[in-house]
């Protein structure tokens, strides 16, 4: 009898154990706008992933004479439908939009990955070892953060793009990038250069965040415990510091995605990013801006996904910040 009571109460009292992942997801789910944004981003990513099967045309398929076709116009030769019409030189706008998404998102994704990686390594190193190197590095980072970044981005990317021999890119990287963005290796060079420029000027916040985290973690007892058990610096940095400092880095990465999508579009828009036959949202916008007075949908269509991506990634970052570390909330 008493036995039965014990089992009953134990079942009703104890909570089901939750993994940290479940707890975080539960908290993330509470942020409604972030959940909606996650849905939007997933949709855009899926469209970009399966672009080959969805897009009716190739990105650079020209049809002479079929300029400015309206929405849903039917192609007389093939019977295929131009869902969003065609642009000023007769390319299917819907297909271009999808291919552009693939390129814009891959550029942003790679840039985020590389810049966070650099930031983590530099920040952890500077924070852990301190000293002169830390001083010089952080002064440099501080200066780069305060200087207006767009002029720098423009000048570097314009020079790199015009002068392909300045930095030779190994063929395997071009090949991989070509596979990812569905471009010929020679065209993928532009994407690689833009990634390099964006990541090269974008790693500073991650480094500052990482350094701050490492500085505070360095004083924690578990680090001391690990050191007293004979752990090497390398072990401490990679097994204790970096995993524990991941929360702000993940938030920064999500906000960074928003920033890079916009930055890449801005570069292409101003004419110093990826150039025309290759579609990106930014250069589609730039190319059709002049027709906005009589065909305003042409620049609006590529502008919308830029805005959506930027907004969604910002909301996701906000939601992640709430979920991962409530103390970080602004």
């Amino acid at each position, binding site marked *: 009898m008493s036995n039965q009571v014990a089992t009953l109460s134990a079942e009703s009292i104890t909570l089901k154990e939750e993994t940290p992942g479940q707890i975080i997801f539960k908290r993330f789910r509470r942020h409604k*706008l972030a959940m909606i944004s996650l849905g939007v981003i997933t949709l855009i990513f899926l469209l970009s992933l399966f672009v080959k099967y969805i897009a009716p045309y190739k990105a650079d398929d020209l049809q002479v004479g079929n300029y400015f076709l309206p929405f849903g116009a039917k192609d007389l030769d093939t019977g295929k439908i131009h869902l969003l019409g065609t642009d000023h030189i007769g390319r299917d706008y819907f297909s271009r939009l999808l291919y552009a998404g693939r390129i814009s998102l891959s550029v942003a994704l790679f840039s985020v990955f590389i810049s966070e990686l650099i930031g983590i390594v530099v920040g952890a190193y500077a924070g852990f070892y301190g000293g002169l190197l830390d001083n010089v590095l952080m002064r440099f980072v*501080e*200066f780069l953060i*305060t*200087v*207006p970044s*767009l*002029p*720098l981005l*423009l*000048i*570097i990317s*314009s*020079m790199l793009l*015009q*002068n392909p021999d*300045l930095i030779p890119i190994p063929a395997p990287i071009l090949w991989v990038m070509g596979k990812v963005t569905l471009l010929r290796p020679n065209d993928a060079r532009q994407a690689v250069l833009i990634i390099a420029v964006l990541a090269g000027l974008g790693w500073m916040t991650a480094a500052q965040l990482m350094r701050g985290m490492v500085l505070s973690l360095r004083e924690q007892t578990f680090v001391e415990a690990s050191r007293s058990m004979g752990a090497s610096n390398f072990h401490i940095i990679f097994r204790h510091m970096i995993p524990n400092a991941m929360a702000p880095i993940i938030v920064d990465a999500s906000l960074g995605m*928003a920033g890079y999508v*916009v930055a890449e*579009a*801005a570069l292409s*828009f*101003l*004419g*110093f990013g990826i150039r025309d036959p290759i579609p990106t949202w*930014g250069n589609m*916008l730039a190319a059709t*801006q002049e027709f*906005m*007075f009589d065909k*305003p949908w042409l*620049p*609006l269509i590529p*502008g*919308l996904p*830029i*805005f959506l991506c*930027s*907004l969604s990634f*910002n*909301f996701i970052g*906000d939601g992640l910040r709430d979920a991962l570390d409530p103390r970080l909330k*602004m």
Partner: protein
Amino acid sequence: MSAYLIRRFFQMVLVVFLSAVASYTLLNFAPGGPLAGLGQVSQSARFRITEEDIARIRQYFELDLVLPVRFSRWFIGEPRGPLSIAGHEFFSGLVVGCRIPVQENVLDNKGSYVTRTVGCKEDVTLGDLVGRRTSRGVLFFDFGLSWTTMRDRPVSVLLLSRLPNTLRLLGIELILSLIIGIPLGIYSAVKQYSRFDYFFTTMAFMGSSMPTFFFGILMILFFSVIPKIAGLPYLPPGSAEAVRDYIIPWVGTIKAGSLADQILHVILPCLVLVFVSVSGWSRFIRASMLDVLRQDYVRTARAKGLTERVVIIKHALRNALIPFVTIIVFSLPGLFGGALITETVFSWPGMGRLYVQALGNSDYPVNMAILFITAVLTVIATLMRDVLYTVVDPRIRFN
């Protein structure tokens, strides 16, 4: 204090020098440039360009000097000739460059011909520099001559012609953003979790995620293109002032260049910039206000029985504005450099658009000048921030 300032001054000089070196070297790797077209021109027999012509053009652009010498002449205007002490000239034979390089086409390992410089037919010595046109040096605000945008006119003239437009646009924007942004942020922080706060934070979020080029195009569409088609009053979509008089429905004829014309032109770009910076700044104010409202001294003030109005304005706001110093001070370089994207979208003839145009035309002296001045202003802004912080917040000390 003075020791601190002196140390900071030397740091500033170092940073300015390094950024000058960086921008100069960067741009000297740049392709294009004044000699890019010469190779093609010399193909045709009638207009064949001689070696001497090329040497003259190279001399005009100082491309015949080695990089450090060229940089030094660009930066401080020296050396102008041999070192002369008490009537004697030293180092006049020192080789500082190459007037006519020997070039040959070499087959590279990929099987294509590349032109490579292999030697020098005629050297330039320090003595040859006497009588050459020199700038007084960038450090003394002489940025040399523009190459393409306004050919052979001083860059500083070009910059000064664009600066008023940018100052007008960004000055109005700065003042409006302050007037709108600060009260919005405060109100939203004081009424945290109210309906207004939710609406405001969402709007501010949208504003800070909105790419300016997209927003600009939307604005042109809604306030310029559609009303114009519909026959309603519309705003001019671009440029700083009209070329000829125009008629706006219900308002009447607007004279080109008049005050009304200028105001109408500034509205749209200003709206875009204000929207973006208000969303950023008011979010910032809101966060810092929320932070301050949680402090003990605010509770003390309330406990003393002060009215909520006094608590917020006298006790909370003044402290919440401290971190705002950073934002204000760092809008200084922006005020000079202009808004690249917005100015381009609205074809506003300011510094930002000049920068983009110059970059597109390979007019590198202009870019270098703008970059350099921006860097200097940034450094000054950093110093101003640090000094101002100690003024507005006595808890912070120099060290």
